[in-house]
């Protein structure tokens, strides 16, 4: 069942002095299933942050409808929205902890809003801080915590009222790689153990790769591509998606890279693409490809590219330099084409 349904939603900001109106989100439709982790990717200004803010109505939509858990958010009054927001947690890039409160006080805040008694609050706070592994920091002030700890407190605070949805707006962008992993692990636990639907906004493909079930790519306020995480990584269709995937795994070397490779590698260059879901009968495509080259006595060397793992499935692009008799190489290429997608790199400058 879809827990968030966005239908034809547009968010436009009126023109500033001397400027033109800005359409941050442009006729977006998106449906998010309960229990999934959706990664929304885009460069800054793509409209992804605005899009999540429409979901909990921190920003009102200009047009279109948004339903959260069956409730139509668009058109609700302030009072109604406050109720909906209790069911949607949100975390931020800059953590947004209140510096006038301790860790305990920060987590208490939404519980006070929700109207819990002091005793109920206390029990819940202890439970939440234990869940995020910060029970001993209850009486620390925010500035005494590291970035990762701050984000974990923010997660505890966002989960306080038992929301069914968690919105994460660039939640790891201010963290170092190691802490990012720690926070992502926690988010995965939130999803696994509590069954909370998570929408992750990010510009880091690493984050999407490690956590998202499904990926939505945004550009200029529009969704340009969406699909299961593996498909987005292994078969990006839109140029924006391809650029994002390339930040993680090289595909076909571009002109400059080829020039660079040519200084050391004079043989035929071909890029072969491997996708785990396209495994040939009786073994992996890689095994088949390399066996074929060896059988045809074509020497090869991997000179560019890489493999990645998304949701337990491998994909990647390897550029090989092939050396051998022309006839052997041609024969091998012919057979390889039947096995895997193959691109000849720079055929014009091919050196015999």
């Amino acid at each position, binding site marked *: 069942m879809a827990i968030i349904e966005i239908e034809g939603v547009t968010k436009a900001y009126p023109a500033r002095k001397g400027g033109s109106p800005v359409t941050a989100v442009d006729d977006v439709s998106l449906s998010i299933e309960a229990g999934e982790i959706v990664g929304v990717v885009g460069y800054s200004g793509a409209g992804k942050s605005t899009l999540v803010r429409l979901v*909990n109505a*921190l920003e009102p939509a200009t047009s279109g409808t948004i339903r959260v858990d069956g409730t139509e958010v668009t058109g609700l009054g*302030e*009072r109604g929205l*406050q*109720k*909906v*927001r*209790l069911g*949607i*947690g*949100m975390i*931020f890039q*800059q953590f*947004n*902890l*209140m*510096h*006038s*409160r301790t860790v305990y006080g920060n987590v208490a*805040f*939404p519980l*006070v*809003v*929700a109207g819990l008694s002091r005793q109920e609050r206390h029990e819940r706070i202890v439970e939440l801080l234990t869940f995020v592994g910060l029970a001993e920091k209850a009486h620390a*002030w925010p*500035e005494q915590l590291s970035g990762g700890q701050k984000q974990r407190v*923010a997660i505890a*605070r*966002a989960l*306080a*009222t038992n929301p069914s949805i968690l*919105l994460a707006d660039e939640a790891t962008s201010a963290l170092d790689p190691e802490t990012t992993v720690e926070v992502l692990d926690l988010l995965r636990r939130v999803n696994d153990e509590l069954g909370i639907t998570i929408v992750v906004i990010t510009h880091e493909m690493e984050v999407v790769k490690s956590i998202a079930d499904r990926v939505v790519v945004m550009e200029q306020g529009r969704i340009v591509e969406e699909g299961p995480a593996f498909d987005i990584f292994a078969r990006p269709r839109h140029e924006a998606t391809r650029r994002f995937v390339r930040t993680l795994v090289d595909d076909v070397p571009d002109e400059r890279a080829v020039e660079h490779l040519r200084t050391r590698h004079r043989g035929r260059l071909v890029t072969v693409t491997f996708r785990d879901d396209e495994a040939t009968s009786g073994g992996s495509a890689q095994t088949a490809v390399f066996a074929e080259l060896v059988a045809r006595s074509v020497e090869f060397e991997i000179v560019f590219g890489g493999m990645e793992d998304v949701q337990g499935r491998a994909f990647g692009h390897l550029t090989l330099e092939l050396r051998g008799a022309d006839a052997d190489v041609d024969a091998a290429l012919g057979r390889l084409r039947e096995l895997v997608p193959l691109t000849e790199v720079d055929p014009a400058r091919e050196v015999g």
Partner: protein
Amino acid sequence: MDRVWELREQYVSDFFVTLYLAAGGLLLGGLLGLVVGTALYVTRSGGIAPSRAVHTALNLVVNVFRPIPFILLAIALQSAVRGLGVTAIGNTYAIIVIVVASTFGIARIVEQNLLSVDTGVLEAARSMGASRTRVVFTVLIPEAYGLLVLGFTFATVAIVDMTAVVGVIAADGLGNLALTYGQRQFNPWVTWTAIALVILIVQTVQFAGNAWARKVLRR
């Protein structure tokens, strides 16, 4: 020097009058200033409760009153206050003038203090289902608390300053004492003793304010 001793009772009573005027002005002006300053903050465009009409109106009033030199305001408000049937001289009138002047001064200080609060924190509070009113009272103001203490300390010093010139509207206080017994009777000792007491008040306020703010800001 002997004259200072002769006037000792006068000093004591005027010292307390100065404290009374400053405290009255600070309490009422501070409260009103906090309200007006917060209203200015929340109604600005992109604020918690944006309202162009309210913001523009408040801005106009603040901008009209704030630049009026205090001594001229003290004279100018006399007719308005008389129109309301209140005696327009003396200590009570002095407090009224101080309240008017300090309200608008403090409003701007409060507005600036609030502007330094990270709006992300307010957004986070709203995302947790807090109403606008709750955000203002339990997030915005507590987050700005330390800076507000410093702002109010600064305002208090300015208010003590105002109490020095209310002699012109027949109010008492150390300023009036210095003018009446010091300047007009050509006795610099009397003047400087009054000044010393004013310095004492200002220093105490400043010291207490700084200590308080340090405690709140935890640095």
